[in-house]
């Protein structure tokens, strides 16, 4: 330990209560930031995973314009073959072809306008969670049979049970009337009213016959191994499909623009709060360091008179802050990590969270994870803020007049 460091360390403990209070402010703020950021990161991850995992997937291949207009005629030719091709891409973990049409669904007693989706029964479960949520009966089993899986609310509203027949009436790709009768083989119950009202899936082959689609569909949905790799996979797929200018590869941000924007909106308000906390801690440090400089005016005057360079004195004050901030960083990160660890085991929730969470595809309890990003992001910012705040008292030293300083009260 060199002489400056030792001097700085000892200076810190001349007023141990004051130092601890300042460190305490940092620890409090750091621990809070670690916890809040961990909860934030976790809820964003869950929001993305749950929203995309439910139905949308990480990327989709569609006919150009389909995403905006969703017209029946904007088809992807040979959709099953394309799904196989996409699935073989490195980085893609699963892919499935789909086709969609609006139709009037009728049972003996009721009629509703619904969105019928044609899916590949063997591939769909790997890109969507709906097949796993079948609560009665079974999911479609790979045939081209006239079978349908519907949501629980839709089933209740149509007054349909397993084995009942559902008639659907819509328009085919050529604009003519398309009609079919399918047997209900499974009922999806997710507990989310919107999903349970909207799900209506039939085998892709049967969809293609009924709606005169030939071998085409409307999209290929794919999941990637890692969310962060989406961009790379999308880029390589785009290169592969460049020959077919009619097709476009859309990433999840394009498919679900609300998701990233909702996260951004939330980030803005979160960062406002973080910034306020950091500014308050920085002011606290500024006050402490300024006081500690002012009360040592005579001492510094003597040191200057003895030949110490003003620059070195400034560095001494910075070093004191650095030591204090390091202490705050280490303790804060430690306490914060411990708090996050506690909640990662026991879960975190507050009254009313369940209602709010359901709106964003979140579970009623969050289990934030301890990660380097969550633990160090906040504390490092506080650390930088503290150093910045001590610049002012340090710079004051550079202009100190030794003679006047020694005479100061």
């Amino acid at each position, binding site marked *: 330990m060199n002489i400056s460091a030792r001097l700085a360390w000892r200076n810190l403990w001349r007023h141990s209560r*004051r130092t601890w209070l300042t460190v305490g402010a940092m620890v409090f703020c750091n621990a809070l930031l670690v916890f809040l950021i961990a909860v934030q990161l976790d809820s964003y991850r869950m929001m993305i995973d749950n929203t995309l995992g439910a139905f949308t997937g990480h990327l989709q291949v569609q006919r150009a314009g389909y995403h905006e207009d969703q017209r029946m005629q904007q088809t992807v030719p040979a959709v099953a073959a394309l799904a196989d091709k996409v699935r073989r891409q490195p980085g893609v973990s699963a892919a499935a072809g789909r086709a969609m049409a609006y139709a009037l669904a009728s049972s003996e007693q009721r*009629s509703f306008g619904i969105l019928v989706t044609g899916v590949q029964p063997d591939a769909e479960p790997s890109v969507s969670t709906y097949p796993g949520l079948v609560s009665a009966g079974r999911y479609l089993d790979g045939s081209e049979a006239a079978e349908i899986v519907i949501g629980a609310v839709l089933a209740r509203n149509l007054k349909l049970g397993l084995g009942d027949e559902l008639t659907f009436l819509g328009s085919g790709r050529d604009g003519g009337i398309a009609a079919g009768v399918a047997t209900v083989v499974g009922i999806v119950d997710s507990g989310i009213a919107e999903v349970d009202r909207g799900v209506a899936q039939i085998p892709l082959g049967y969809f293609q016959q009924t709606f005169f689609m030939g071998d085409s569909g409307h999209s290929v949905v794919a999941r990637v191994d890692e969310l962060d790799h989406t961009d790379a996979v999308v880029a390589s797929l785009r290169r592969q499909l460049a020959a077919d200018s009619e097709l476009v590869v859309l990433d999840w941000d394009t498919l679900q623009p609300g998701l990233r924007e909702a996260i951004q*909106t939330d980030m803005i308000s979160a960062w406002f709060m973080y910034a306020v906390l950091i500014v308050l801690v920085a002011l606290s440090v500024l*006050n402490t360091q300024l006081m500690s400089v002012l009360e040592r005016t005579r001492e510094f005057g003597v040191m200057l008179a003895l030949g110490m360079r003003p620059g070195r004195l400034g560095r001494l004050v910075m070093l004191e802050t650095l030591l204090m901030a390091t202490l705050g960083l280490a303790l804060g990160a430690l306490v914060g990590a411990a708090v996050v660890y506690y909640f990662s085991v026991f879960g975190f929730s507050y*009254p009313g969270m369940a209602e709010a969470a359901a709106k964003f595809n979140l579970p009623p309890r969050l289990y934030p994870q301890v990660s380097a990003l969550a633990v160090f992001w906040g504390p490092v910012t506080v650390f930088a803020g503290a150093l910045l705040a001590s610049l002012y008292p340090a710079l004051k030293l550079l202009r100190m007049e030794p003679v006047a300083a020694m005479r100061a009260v």
Partner: protein
Amino acid sequence: MMLLRAGIGRLAWRNLWRNRRRTLIMLLAVVVGVWAMVFMSAMMRGMVDEMVRNGLDQLPGEVQIHHRDYRDDPSVVNSIAPPAGDLLAALQQPPVSAWSARVRVPAMVSSAHGSRGVTLLGVDPAAERALGSAPRTMVAGRFLDGVDDRGVVLGQRLVERLETGLGKRVVIMSQDPDNNVADRGVRVVGIYSARLPGDEERFVYGGRAAIQELLGIGHQVSEVAVIGDGYRAVAPWAARVAAAAPELEVLSWRQLDPFLDAMLTLQDGFALVFMVVVFQALSFGLVNTLAMAVFERVREIGLMQALGMRPGLVLQQVLLESVFLLGLGLALGNALAWLSIKPLESGIDLSSVARGMEMFAMGSILYPALDWRDMLLSTVVVLGLGLLASLIPAWRAARLDPVRALNSH
């Protein structure tokens, strides 16, 4: 004694400004903290108000009356007679300010280019306007001109999806009570835009009598929407309406939309938590500043005590210093918050994250709502907790031993 009190006050005020720089820094911290408290609360209040307003628009009404089975099965079968007798009397009594009986059934709308499942609303335009649930902005054409209007009004997004337009014909399909398909070609007489783009695709408006005729339900309606004198206090008059219609289901918006209810309850809790957290970050600096002020004056306090000043007065004096500091900070912080929010009250444009805001059930413009209760709450929190925190240094000052204090240096 009065004189002594006044003297203490003056002493405390002067002491506060003995170290101008320190006090100013601490004051700055309090101002930033208070500003953040009030500013953030106004933003949150604005967001929640907007969510509730949008939610009530969508429901619509603060109280809704339905057939007991309608909410589970929103079919034309579960219609009710229009209000008459006791119910009508209850609806004409203040604080009920407006009500509207509407037909609301699932339907399909088709153009030559496609079809969509929608919610068909058969309304009385005058009553909807009184209720505030008629579309606010007409992009083209007009809204319905009476219950007999045989035209329909579509949302802009739906018009785009169906590739139809003003004056063109679309086909509406629904079912009558005997489960026969009821369909009719109708003309698009108006196109509206909604605060939430999703609504534009969901709701189609038609004249009530015309829709009743289409569905063959005589004068029956699906729901009666009612508003009173403010959404926060609906329970008393909702109960009175319910008593007048024992065979029907009468629910307030809190029961109809638990998410909104949860948000409103959460908001007040969040505001308090945020204020306490910000104050916590402030308190370290506050205690530190006061402790330093006491520490510098140890001899002086000892002298005053030796001259006969009671420990109670010393305590008072330090606490008064704290009150002056906090009070000044509160006044400036609240003034700053008022000044910064006033120009924003006409609305903050967030259209760059509009689709994200829609996930929060909000439009793209945020109207901050400055409420005197938030200002009061911040004052109570800062002064209350501030005095509590100041007790520690004040107590230490009061308990100084005069002899030792006089001999310290």
